[in-house]
């Protein structure tokens, strides 16, 4: 399965927005946060989960696929970078293409912005700022083995379906033990749990 990456555990999210504040403190984005806090069950409960870029692997990042200016680069280690400011034309194709609703456009500057997995930190072996500070562990950075050592029995998914399209992501999601089929919180159908196809 995946190497060092972010695992999102919605069951632990308390909606405190430490990740949102921390993302703003990260040097990559110069004072802007690239994390959304989503409320999955609004009106019924206060359940929430942070949405970061899922760093799609297969098919390779739809946002990069559709970029007419070739501004979104994917590094060899699977990080989907934010748009190169010297190339981005602010057309918002990436916003429309992303199945997870991640990229943002700064309309004034006509530039795209998105989570780049804190490339300035992960390139040095550090965790992204959001996962470093997350007080509850709703965002965890490491390998799946490190996660399972800390949380015995935890189940994760990195393959999701949208209609007939399967998307495998670089960032994975923790799946509640009693919901190993689908959907994960947020209603996203899961195809694989811990690397096993759960449709069979």
């Amino acid at each position, binding site marked *: 399965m995946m190497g060092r990456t972010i695992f999102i555990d919605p069951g632990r999210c308390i909606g405190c927005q430490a990740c949102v504040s921390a993302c703003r403190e990260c040097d990559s984005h110069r004072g802007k946060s690239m994390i959304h806090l989503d409320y999955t069950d609004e009106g019924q*409960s206060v359940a929430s989960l942070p949405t970061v870029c899922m760093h799609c692997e297969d098919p390779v990042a739809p946002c990069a696929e559709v970029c007419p200016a070739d501004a979104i680069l994917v590094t060899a280690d699977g990080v989907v970078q934010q748009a190169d400011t010297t190339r981005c034309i602010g057309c918002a194709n990436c916003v429309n293409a992303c199945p997870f609703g991640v990229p943002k456009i700064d309309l004034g500057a006509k530039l795209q912005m998105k989570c780049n997995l804190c490339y300035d930190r992960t390139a040095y072996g550090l965790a992204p700022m959001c996962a470093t500070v997350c007080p509850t562990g709703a965002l965890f950075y490491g390998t799946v083995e490190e996660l399972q050592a800390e949380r015995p029995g935890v189940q994760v998914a990195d393959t999701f379906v949208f209609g007939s399209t399967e998307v495998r992501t670089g960032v994975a999601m923790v799946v509640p033990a009693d919901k190993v089929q689908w959907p994960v919180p947020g209603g996203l159908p899961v195809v694989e749990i811990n690397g096993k196809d759960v449709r069979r």
Partner: protein
Amino acid sequence: MPADQWHADQDGETLVPTHCCFCGVQCGMYLRVDRGGKVFGVEPRNHDINRMRLCPKGINAYQQVNHPDRLTAPLMRRSRDEEFAEVSWDEALDFTVSEIRRIQEMYGKDAFGLLGGASLFSEKTYLVGKFARVALKTKHVDYNGRLCMVSAAGANKLAFGIDRAGNPFSDILLTDCLLIAGSNVGECFPVLTQYVWGARDRGASLIVVDPRETAVARTADIHVALKPGTDSAFFNSLLCVIVEEGLADEAYLAEHTTGWEEVKAKALEYPPSRAAQICGVPAEQIFQVARTFARAPKAMAWHARGIEHHSQGVENCLTVINLCAATGHIGKPGAGYGTLTGQGNGQGGREHGQKADLLPGGRSILNEEHRRQICEIWGIEESELPTAGTSMMEMVWQMQRREIRGLIGICNNPFVSLPNYRVVKEGYDATEFHAQFDFFLSETAANAHVVFPVTTWAEDDGVMANAEARVVKHNKAQEPPPGVRTDTWVMCELARRLGAGDKFAFADSREVFEELRTASRGTVIDYYGITYERLEETGGIAWPCPSTDHPGTPRLFEDGRTYHEDGRIHLQAVEWHLPMDPYSDEFPMSLTTGRTVAHFLSGNQTRRLGALVEQTPRPWAEVHPSHGFRTGEPVRVVTRRGSEVFPALVTEAIRPDTVFLPYHWPVPTAANALTIDALDPRSKIPEYKVCACRIEHASELDTVPSPPVAPGHVAYPETQVSRTDPLPPTSPQGRGTSERS
């Protein structure tokens, strides 16, 4: 490269290791300091307590250091009818000293009072106590920790002879059953959820006792949503089940406790059938909790303001201690009890003489031997040392009755934090002279005659003791802005002008700490073995620490002995009684108050930080759907003290008979304009967590002004920080461009 040394020396930037200024967890953090010597950011720190984690308050805390709202010159006015004017330090100090002299000559020494705070470093809280007794010579000194955890302190002292949590946070990870009573851990101590859920991941049962389904309650094995103000009936009933089912550890009780027979007899008066009716929970749940807790090989109980902010706060805490003792869950790894302190120095703030009845080292001001010891250290005659004063709320009542005519407040904001706002306002308005130390103009400082601009936590050295009684050192990260002085300097300068300069010849915090260490030597709260150097090397030492080669005491009672002379736990029988504000047809519901994750206490600090204001701009009233409100609709909350209108937050996460209000805002949206100023008779803590109320539909939410947003409010920190260096491009040029075809 060690992960937490990231950024060190980059472009001249330095990282100063320190701790968060807010809650009693005391997370380690680095403050980022630019080449000009200014704090401009935060970097996570791999400290024992938090392992890099921070909550949104901690991440944004640095923004207050160079905030545009900072006070940078003393403010003064001779009467409350005048506007404040910026004056010189000499003028402000001289006026203050002349007013102290005038009031004390006319009405006596005790007509002047001093109120400190538990967010101050321990050195400063030590000075507050000494300044009151030696320089002002008044008995009236107390602090805002009185509003925080004195109930737990009182109970711990009665039962164990020592006033602190029994176990370190790390023991939570070792337990098999964790009981959390009256603590919204997720929002008030977010970093602790890692310990709580770490225990759960390893198979521990989690029991949460809280009228609201908080984020942590949502994940609990058992959530007991009891009616506010019924905690001691619930805990007595747990004990009743434990006795009746033979689950008590009789051998432990016989060897280590006194008073068990009385406690047992009282507990048997609370069978689950009766307690279920009092508490409004199913009797089955009481059986379930009692069995889970008692049968666990190792169990722990942690509690906070939810059970302490009551007119029987001490008794509530005593029933939790009875539960732990009766099941033998004391003094072992993964077994014990603890209190989560709300303020950064909630623990240390009461240890060294800031409290009305205490002298340094937790000595009693009424004990002749203790008085003699302290007078010797301070170099004064015993006849000069005042006796015990009154508590914070009682001092306000005395101000209302004009028994206290002058007041200095340091690091507190009673206009938002004390209950029954009308009484507080009347009390403060009645003073002839009021001075306040603060770095922002708080609601209380705005009432003063003199406001002294003092340092933030990032501009001075000092220690704090967190909820585990672990003493940690905060380090100075930048020089104070011009015109700003340390609280230590201001107190020493006032003392000098009052003629006690020889007793206050302290140049800095280190010198105060050296005297504090000596003054605590040989007491239960022994700091003698703790030095600044050791704190920097170890990342924190838990007291008691009697010598410089002693490792400190993270876990108490491991030898089976308490700090009472007989070495036993003194169990106390507790009778439940109704809250002080009676329910009636007119006021049938319970109003309870608490905190939100984005704000801290009276909000004087966090209501100025852009990201936190945006996250939670105003308070709300949390109500159950059965009342027919929709989220956002105006709801009027009425108590016997007054009424206010809030937008409704409709949720099934609260009991139908209860309303919740967060309390961080001033009038006209102040929860504490509605709460009652009833006190626990022993700890004198106000009953914030329950009063009678009713709710009504209101039409005029729009006419209620939003809480004031400070002039320094900014959406993002760029406007306050000197982040001027161009940053490297974020897209790594020339690296594997894409796997795209």
